[in-house]
C-alpha cells in the first residue's frame, strides 16, 4: 500500500485493523452495497516518478508559447516582483485552511486585514471583504447586494461598456436567481447616460453597474450620476481596475455605493485566466449585505492586538439558505499576493507604473494613428493603458504575423476595431517593433 504520499506499511495496517476489530480493509466498506463497489482499474496513467512527471509537464509546456503581450481584455501583463513568489512559497501560508482557529492563524488573518485596508485605500470605500473568486463573480455578487439592499426592487441595469465576459457572468447569476437585467446601450464608446436615466425614472431599479475604465479602456465621466441614482433610490456599483485606481477617480469619489472588479492587475501573472481574485468594497451602510469572509481587528484575553473572522452571522454555515450568499472561502493566497505587491510598489510605485503604462499606450496610439492606416475608434475620449483603433487592414492576418514573431497583438473586436493594452513592461523598442511588424 505504501507510496510517498501514503505511509502505511503492511505492519501498520495489521496493527490498525486489529485495534478496529476487523480482519481486512474490505471490512471497512462492508456497509457499501456490492453493486456499487468499483472493481475495475481507473483509466489514468501509471504512477510517475518526479523525473517522469517533470518531463511530462515540460513536454506540455513546450506546446504553449509565452508572448510579448499587447492585449488586455481584463487581463494585464503587469510586472510581478520576485519577492512575491518567495513569500507565497512559505508553506505556513499556503498549507493552512481558512482561519477558523484564530489563535494559530494570525498570519492569515493579519494579511487579510492588510488586504482589506489596501483595497479600501484604492477604492476609497470604508469596507472590503477578504476577496472573491474573480472580477466577474464579484460583480454578480454586487448585483445581489444591490437587490438585497433595495426594498422590493428586482431590476439591475448594467452598462454595455462593462467587459462582455463580466456581463455574461452577471446575466447567468441573474437568470437563475431571478433578477431582471437591463443592458444600458452605449453611445460612441461610453454609457448612454440618457438611456440610463430613462430606465431609472421607471422607479423599479435596484442598482446600476458601470465600468471604470470601460471595456474600450475609456475613462467615463460619471459627474452627477450618483446623485441621479440616489434620487431614484437606486444603488451605484462601479467595476474598476484596482491598479488604475491608484491614479484615476475612485468609485468613492464618484459617489458609488459598491466597488468591485478583478485583482489580476495587481501584479498577478497571466496564469492562463486564473487564479486571480475578485474584490468587493462598499460603504459601511451596506456592510451587512456583503458576501464572503471579513476580518476584523480585536484584542485577546491579555489585551494584545489580534484579528478574527467577523460578521459571520451573514454566512452560509450559520444562516444556511438565509445567508447573503453561498460563498464560504476567499482567494486568500491571491489576496496575500495583491497585498505584498501593493506593499512593494507602495504609494509612489503604484502611480509611477500607471504613468509609464499610460505614456507607453499613448505612444503606441500616436504611432498607429500617424501611420495613416489606423484611425481613433472613439476620438477625443481619454484612456489610460488600453485603447481601441479602427483599420481597414486584415486584423487576423496582422495578429497571425505577430504571433509568428512572438507577439500577442490587439484583441479583434470586429468591424475593423482592435483593442491594445500597454503596461509598464513594454519598452519603446518593443512598441516600435510591434508597429513595424503590423505595417509590414
Amino acid at each position, binding site marked *: 500500500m505504501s507510496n510517498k504520499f501514503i505511509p502505511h506499511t503492511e505492519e501498520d495496517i495489521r496493527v490498525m485493523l486489529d485495534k478496529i476489530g476487523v480482519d481486512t480493509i474490505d471490512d471497512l466498506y462492508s456497509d457499501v452495497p456490492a453493486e456499487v463497489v468499483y472493481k475495475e482499474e481507473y483509466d*489514468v496513467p501509471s504512477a510517475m516518478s518526479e523525473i517522469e512527471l517533470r518531463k511530462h509537464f515540460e513536454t506540455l509546456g513546450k506546446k504553449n508559447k509565452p508572448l510579448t*503581450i499587447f492585449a488586455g481584455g481584463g487581463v494585464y501583463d503587469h510586472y510581478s516582483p520576485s519577492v512575491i513568489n518567495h513569500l507565497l512559497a512559505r508553506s505556513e501560508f499556503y498549507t493552512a485552511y481558512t482561519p477558523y482557529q484564530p489563535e494559530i492563524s494570525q498570519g492569515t488573518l493579519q494579511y487579510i486585514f492588510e488586504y482589506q485596508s489596501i483595497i479600501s485605500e484604492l477604492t476609497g470605500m470604508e469596507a472590503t471583504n477578504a476577496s472573491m473568486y474573480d472580477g466577474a463573480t464579484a460583480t454578480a455578487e454586487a448585483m445581489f447586494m444591490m437587490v438585497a439592499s433595495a426594498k422590493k426592487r428586482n431590476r439591475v441595469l448594467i452598462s454595455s461598456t462593462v467587459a462582455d465576459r463580466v456581463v455574461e457572468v452577471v446575466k447567468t447569476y441573474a437568470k437563475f436567481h431571478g433578477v431582471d437585467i437591463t443592458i444600458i446601450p452605449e453611445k460612441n464608446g461610453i454609457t448612454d447616460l440618457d438611456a440610463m436615466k430613462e430606465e431609472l425614472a421607471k422607479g423599479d431599479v435596484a442598482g446600476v453597474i458601470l465600468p471604470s475604465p470601460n471595456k474600450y479602456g475609456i475613462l467615463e465621466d460619471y459627474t452627477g450620476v450618483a446623485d441621479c441614482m440616489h434620487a431614484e433610490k437606486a444603488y451605484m456599483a462601479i467595476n474598476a481596475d484596482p491598479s488604475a485606481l491608484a491614479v484615476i477617480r475612485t468609485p468613492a469619489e464618484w459617489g458609488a455605493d459598491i466597488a468591485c472588479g478583478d485583482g489580476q492587475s495587481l501584479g498577478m501573472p497571466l496564469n492562463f485566466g486564473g487564479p486571480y481574485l475578485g474584490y468587493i468594497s462598499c460603504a459601511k451602510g451596506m456592510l451587512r449585505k456583503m458576501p464572503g469572509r471579513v476580518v476584523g481587528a480585536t484584542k485577546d484575553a491579555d489585551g494584545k492586538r489580534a484579528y478574527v473572522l467577523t460578521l459571520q452571522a451573514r454566512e452560509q454555515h450559520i444562516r444556511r439558505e438565509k445567508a447573503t450568499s453561498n460563498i464560504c472561502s476567499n482567494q486568500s493566497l491571491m489576496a496575500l499576493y495583491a497585498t505584498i505587491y501593493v506593499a512593494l510598489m507602495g504609494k509612489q510605485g503604484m502611480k509611477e507604473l500607471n504613468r509609464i503604462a499610460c505614456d507607453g499606450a499613448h505612444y503606441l496610439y500616436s504611432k498607429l494613428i500617424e501611420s495613416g492606416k489606423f484611425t481613433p475608434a472613439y476620438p477625443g475620449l481619454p484612456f489610460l493603458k488600453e485603447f481601441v483603433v479602427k483599420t481597414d487592414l486584415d486584423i487576423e492576418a496582422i495578429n497571425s504575423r505577430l504571433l509568428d514573431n512572438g507577439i500577442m497583438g490587439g484583441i479583434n473586436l470586429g468591424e475593423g476595431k482592435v483593442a491594445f493594452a500597454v503596461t509598464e513592461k513594454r519598452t519603446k523598442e518593443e512598441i516600435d517593433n510591434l508597429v513595424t511588424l503590423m505595417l509590414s
Partner: protein
Amino acid sequence: MKYYDKLIFELSRPGRKGYELPATDFGHDAFAEMPATLMREKDADLPEVSELDVVRHYTNLSNKNFGVDTGFYPLGSCTMKYNPKINEELAALPAFTQIHPLQDEKSIQGALELYWNLQHALSNIAGLYEFTLNPYAGAHGELTGLMVMRQYHIANGDLKRTKVIVPDSAHGTNPASAMVAGLQVVEVKSKPNGSIDVEDLKPLLDDTVAGIMMTNPNTLGMFETEIMEIAKLVHEAGGLLYYDGANLNPLLGKVRPGDMGFDIMHINLHKTFSTPHGGGGPGSGPVGVVEKLAKFLPNPRVKKNSDGSFTITTDEDSLGSISTFLGNFGVMMKAYAYILTLGKENLKNVGPMATLNANYIKESLKDDYLLPIEGVCKHEFVFDGLKDKSTGVTTLNVAKRLLDYGFHAPTIYFPLLFHESMMIEPTETEALETLDEFIEVMHKVAAEAKENPDLVKDAPVTTLVRKLDETGAAKNPILTYRHLVSEDNK
C-alpha cells in the same frame, strides 16, 4: 519566537520604496495631460517600505500561522492532506503562468491539453460523462451544478420544478447555493444514525422537485446504505441527484458517484486531489455530469478536434458562463500532477487508507469521547464531546487545548445534529505514529478535564495570542487600518 504585531502600514516611512521601474522615454508625458476631473483627488495611503521590510514582515506573519506542513490538521470535512511540493514547482512553470487567456489557440495547446486530460481523468474517477473545470471552489461548483439541474428542467419545459431537497445534516453551502440558484430548499430529516430517512423523503418527491443534494458518506462520515433506493425514488419522480464531493476522499478506489446514481457532482480539488487550501483559497470545484446533462455545462469549454488539437468552444445549450475564463488553471495543474504521481496503482489506495486512519482514531478514543453512532465510518467521524459531561468542559475547550499541544483542532459544532460535535478527519497521508500522538494527547486532555477542568477551559495558553474578543469585533467592526487608527485616537 518574539511576538510581532506590526501592520505593514506601521513600517511605512515617506519616501522609502520597495521597487524599481525602468527609466522610460516615450518623448511625451501623456499621463500629465489626463483630465483632472477623471483623476483621483487624493492619493491612496499605501505603505512606503523597503524590499527587506516587506520580506521580514511577511516572514514574521507566516510564523504566526499553522499549516499542514506545521503539524497534524484533523479538520473534519476539509481533507487536509499533504500538499506535494513538486506540484507547486510545476504549476509555477513560466510556460503556463506567462500565457494570456485570450491568446491564439495555436499558442496554448499545452494548457488546453492539460485541461482536457484532467477533465477526462476526473470523469473516469467519478464515473460521469463530462466535466467542466471552470468553477472556482466547492460552493461555486455546487452553484454551477444546481444551475445545470435547473437548466435541464427548463429545457424540458418543466418549469414548476423549483424545489431542491437537502438533508438537515448537509454542509451549510448546500442550502445557500440552492438559494443563490433560485431554488427553494426542502429539508429531509436524518434518522438517529445520521442517514437520510427514506420514509420522510418519499412524500416530498412530487413534480415540483428539481432534485436532491446529498453527500455520501454523509457529514457524519457514515455511508448512506440506502443510496440505490434513494436514487431510484428520485429518478422515478423526475428529479436529479446532486453529489456534494466534499466527502469524496474515502471513495477513491472503492466507489464512483456516477455508479451510485448521481447525475451531477462537484469535486473539491483542494480536498481529494491535494491542492493547497492557501489559507482559504484559491480552490477549484470541477463539476461532472451524466451524458444527458453535458450540453448544459457552462461556457467556455475545452474540446478535442478530430486532428488531435484542442479548442475552446461555447455551446448554445449551455447554462451560460460562471467564470471569466477557464477557472483556476494554476490549481488544476497541481491536481493533475497529483493524479499522475499516484497513478492508477496508488489512487485506489487513497480511500481505503483514509478510512483506515479515521476508524483507528475513532476506536482508540471512544472510551473518553462520546461516540453517538457505532459502526465503521469512512474518512471522518463525529464525537459528541467528552463522554464525561460532569466536568463542564466543552468541545470548544478541548479544541483550544489541542492548540496548546501543537495540533490543529477538529471541525467543531458541525454537523448540527449534536450539541458538542467534534468532527475528525485524519486523511491518508498521516502515519500511524502521528495518529498515536494525537490519540495520546486527546486522552490527556480528557484526563485534564476531569482533574483540572479550569486548565482546559482557559486554553489556549501557549499560543501567540489567547482567547479573542469575537463579540466586540462583530459589534464594532474595524475592518481597515484607517479605521483602526481612528479608533486608537479616540
